[in-house]
């Protein structure tokens, strides 16, 4: 026992994890608490003559039609983007997970967009979506569809979804690894027992990879709810300075928050919006965690996560 004591001095462990510990407190916890304090004021970002206003920012938020509309829009956006990208990345992984010529090339092609910086992504897609000079309308024109103004309402919403789906290659790589982890014997055994392709997929493959599907869903939801740079960059205007230029249909919750901060200079109100949003995200995550118990299948021997 004494030997173990000297081998692992308590302080050494704490010293090694101190960068994260101190960093978490100073750069995550403190800003969040600070944000909460600001949300109780009418601070405008610069004026020293702010005062405490209690919970009135929160009270105002309850009756704020714009904020509610943005929240609903964000939830709809998330409800569309996350299933599509999880299903899409699984679909691509299934497509790639077979005997193919040049499989490495296809994998690279599907994977590549996910590492492209968001700014470059937005510039590319603005060129593709351009109403008069974009390739998309040119292709649609061949089949007789009139030019669509993709970057303004109401099409901008769909343009944004396409942009999001373009980068699903990261998920595909994860799904691919998950698929390759499913023992072939299980699928073969099911097939021998007379199960069709779809049944094997539904009853064997999906349960086996359900932890990965679940993880992708949770991170996808948390990611999609926060989307905010893409709508700002996908406008005909340029960049963040024109935060007001985001079309209504892509005016997501964080865009609204950003507007309250930097267009209306309502730092207190914006901070209240952030805190409410944090609780919304937390609640949705909890809901997903709870639902996972009914459909995520864990093998008994994978429990030792913290081995």
């Amino acid at each position, binding site marked *: 026992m004494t030997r173990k004591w000297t081998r692992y001095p308590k302080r050494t462990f704490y010293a090694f994890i101190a960068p994260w510990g101190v960093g978490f407190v100073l750069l995550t916890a403190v800003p969040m608490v600070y944000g909460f304090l600001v949300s109780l004021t009418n601070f405008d970002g610069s004026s020293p003559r702010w005062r405490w206003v209690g919970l009135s920012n929160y009270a105002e938020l309850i009756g704020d039609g714009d904020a509610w509309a943005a929240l609903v829009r964000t939830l709809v956006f998330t409800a569309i983007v996350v299933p599509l990208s999880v299903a899409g990345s699984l679909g691509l992984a299934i497509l790639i997970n077979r*005997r193919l*010529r040049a499989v490495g090339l296809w994998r690279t092609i599907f994977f590549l967009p996910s590492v492209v910086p968001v700014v*470059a992504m937005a*510039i590319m897609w603005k060129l593709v979506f351009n109403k008069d000079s974009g390739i998309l309308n040119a292709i649609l024109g061949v089949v007789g569809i009139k030019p669509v103004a993709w970057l303004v309402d109401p099409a901008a919403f769909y343009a944004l979804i396409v942009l999001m789906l373009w980068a699903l290659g990261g998920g595909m*790589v994860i799904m691919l690894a998950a698929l390759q982890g499913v023992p072939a014997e299980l699928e073969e055994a099911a097939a021998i027992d007379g199960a069709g392709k779809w049944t094997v997929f539904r009853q064997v493959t999906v349960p086996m990879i359900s932890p990965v599907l679940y*993880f992708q869903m949770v991170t996808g939801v948390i990611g999609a709810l926060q989307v905010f740079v893409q709508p700002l960059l996908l406008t005909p205007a340029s960049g*963040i300075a024109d935060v007001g230029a985001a079309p209504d249909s892509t005016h997501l919750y964080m865009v609204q928050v950003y507007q309250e901060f930097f267009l209306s200079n309502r730092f207190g109100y914006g901070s209240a919006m952030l805190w409410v949003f944090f609780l919304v995200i937390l609640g949705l995550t909890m809901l997903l965690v709870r639902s996972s118990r009914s459909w995520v299948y864990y093998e008994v021997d994978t429990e030792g996560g913290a081995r």
Partner: protein
Amino acid sequence: MTAIRTAPPQADRKPAVQAPRRPTKKRTPAWMYIVILVLSMFFVGPFVWLLLAAFKTPAEWASLPISILPAHPQWQNFVDALTSMNFFGYAGNSLFLSTIYSVLITLSSAAVGFGFARLKAPGKGAIFLVLLSTMMIPQILTLLPTYVLFSQIGLIDTYWPWVLWGLAASPYMAFLFRQFFAAIPRELEDAAIVDGAGWLRIFATIFLPLSRPVLITSFILSFTWTWGDYIGPALFLNLDHTTLAVAITAWYQDPHGNVIPTVQAAGAVMYVIPVLLIFFFAQRYFIRSNLGSGVKG
């Protein structure tokens, strides 16, 4: 794909089930290749269209009906992209910021991962759970309050925020390092302990050099992330000190304030080339990092 050190859950399975892991692969019908080709066009198309735009004259870009190929490649677009703003200056800012941040966050995350993998102290398990759950805290929610806070203490328009973020380690990278370090046999450190080495020395001289693949993964990922980050520099830096990501959206305008698409396309091409090069030479590290997140136990 073969060198995943972060033991996936399957590694625990009994040998009887483990045998051939390959899925049953049948010959692929031709129509499948057509599907793959169409999908590839969706993923590659925007790159090609960007590249074509970068070589067009403004008139070609705006012509109706559209001209797919530029008549004469307009290298002048690239010259304009480099000279109409201080391209190399901004690229230097991006490079500096990305390097500083990546080096710091890689080392700090390695230390944290080492602590969780090899050291013992009361409360370690609980603290590790906290670390894992902080991965789920939406970054964007802390960013605006951090901005307000930093503007109060004068850290706006400096590179200090990136230094601080780098020093603070990333829970995700720390997790990758932990998985790697946990798999290393104990004998390795035993010998050093007998020789009287302290933990810091064991970490720096034995474990850190061993973790080269994770070091590279962490560095590359943080580097491309910072290079690509838009909202950070847009919020925390003024236009003079900002990075290329912000600069290519803010410049390249004609006297009326309208973006010149062909020049911006040329600028964007030069902006993504470093990322694409890193990707092509280090694809397996990107894949490894994705897998690390997929097998989170």
